[in-house]
């Protein structure tokens, strides 16, 4: 409620301080474990630091103490990439379908919302029971993949709703008037325009899968993903190797986030340079 642009009300400073505290609360403890992962070889789980070393990072690769870190890491990345691809394709298709009214649309939508808020452990239990009854062996690329999709697809769908609500359909109609086929319209008009939104869906697909735990726990089968290795470590490992693993996995997440957000920003900047090619509706988030 900043009418007078020059002077900020006193409440601004109070709220800004509150916000700063919140950010500190959000990032403070996390940064503590990143620092602690560089403990010296004799260092413990808490401060003070006993020297600085990469000892605990190398310890991660010695399988016997800390579990199968390398295997879990590879499987988690592979699974996250599969989930990303399926989430993008299936969410985009479903998002396009929901632009038209069709019988059962509301039911499908509520099924997706129910799937989104279903406690993860219950999804895992159900899928695990289903595989057991059918006599199929649970695997990370089978049952765990399916269980994770029940969580990434509703997210993808909701993002597609937000993205498509700003999509100007006259570009599609122009393509149709010029005689383009449906596939050509999809590939040459819809996908390029929606591309930043697709990156957002991909970011959710990858990171939600890469860090997924409650749905994967009962469906993964014999070979663990990385979050399950970490879960095992929280009970067995009482050394800073646990923090080293936390640092490594957070670095992977941050890399993915930076690539995704960076490419969205890059595309938006390129588009704003060529206003004619821009589809972005005027931002509805005005501060004034």
């Amino acid at each position, binding site marked *: 409620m900043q009418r007078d642009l020059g002077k900020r009300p006193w409440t601004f400073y109070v709220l800004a301080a509150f916000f700063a505290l919140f*950010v500190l609360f959000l990032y403070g*403890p996390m940064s503590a474990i990143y620092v602690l992962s560089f403990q010296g070889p004799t260092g413990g789980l808490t401060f003070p630091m006993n020297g600085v070393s990469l000892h605990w990072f190398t310890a991660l690769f010695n399988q016997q103490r800390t579990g199968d870190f390398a295997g879990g890491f590879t499987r988690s990345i592979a699974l996250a990439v599969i989930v990303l691809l399926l989430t993008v394709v299936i969410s985009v*298709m*479903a998002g396009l379908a929901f632009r038209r009214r069709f019988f059962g649309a509301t039911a499908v939508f509520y099924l997706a919302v129910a799937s989104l808020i279903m406690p993860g452990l*219950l999804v895992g239990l*159900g899928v695990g029971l289903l595989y057991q009854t059918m006599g199929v062996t649970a695997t990370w690329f089978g049952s765990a993949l399916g269980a994770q999709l029940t969580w990434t697809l509703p997210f993808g769908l909701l993002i597609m709703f937000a993205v498509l609500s700003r999509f100007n359909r006259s570009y599609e109609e122009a393509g149709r008037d010029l005689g383009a086929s449906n596939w050509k319209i999809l590939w040459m008009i819809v996908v390029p325009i929606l591309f930043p939104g697709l990156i957002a869906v991909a970011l959710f697909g990858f990171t939600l899968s890469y860090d997924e735990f409650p749905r994967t726990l009962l469906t993964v089968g014999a070979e663990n993903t990385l979050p399950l290795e*970490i879960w095992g470590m929280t009970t067995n490992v009482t050394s800073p190797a646990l923090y080293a693993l936390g640092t490594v*996995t*957070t670095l992977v997440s941050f890399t993915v986030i930076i690539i995704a957000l960076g490419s969205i920003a890059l595309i938006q900047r390129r588009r704003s340079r060529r206003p004619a090619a821009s589809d972005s509706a005027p931002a509805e988030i005005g501060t004034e």
Partner: protein
Amino acid sequence: MEFAIKLSTASTSYLQVAPLLLVLVAFFGIPLLMIVGVSFFEYDGVSSVPAFQFGNYIDLFTSRITLTLYLKTLEYALFVWAITLVVGFTVSYFLAFHVRSILWQMALFLLCTVPFWTSNIIRMISWIPFLGRNGLFNQALIGLGVTKEPLEFLLFSDFAVVIAYVHLFTLFMIVPIFNAMARIDRSVVEAALDGGSSRWRIIWEIIIPLSKTGIALGSIFVITLVMGDFFVVNTMSGGHSASVALAMYNQIAAVQYPFAAASAVILLVIVTLLVAAILRVVDVRRELAG
């Protein structure tokens, strides 16, 4: 001709939505029915035997532990909901109404959302060196002379559980509330200011009513997340406390699937009732489907 076109667009819709429906039915719908089915099975002490009997439910309803677990879980849910609501609302209000440049608004909003894309387990564990006996918080308190002895209740306690929940789930409040606030027409607020309203009155009579769909969505997320959690309670309470889902997890670990399935059904009924109650107060359908 027109009929043919209508038919083809309808079938296109079904083709496009088919993969989503297939995945949700196969990995959500059918597994849900499996749980309901298994909840009537019999457990003979070693394995589950297909049956149709209500023994598991009778056991659950007559056990005193069930009530204790639900009360504890609801207590966590209530505390966490209240804290995340106040924090989430305040942060969103600051971002939506006090940050002037859209660029800054988006940057600060992203700053709040980045942790969501990182591991929940790691974020939870990060409280251990912070709250422990020799942790940073205790060292700071002793350094400041607030206490002489390190505080013991900080870690492996209800306090630690609630802190970890708030840390993990506040984001689920911020995103929908901020989204709702960003859509509020600024001229309404301007008009109220011109009419001489106080800031508090504007918050109570304009901003809260207009962002209630966001508040409801955030509440649904936070409450269902807390009700379904087992790993935060397990780790952060240090085994001193339990939740409904943790008890269920222990039953699964002991391969007592019929008991676990019956607990799951009851948990689902209660979560559904809570969500229905929220939806009764605030109709979020328009918001979601829009």
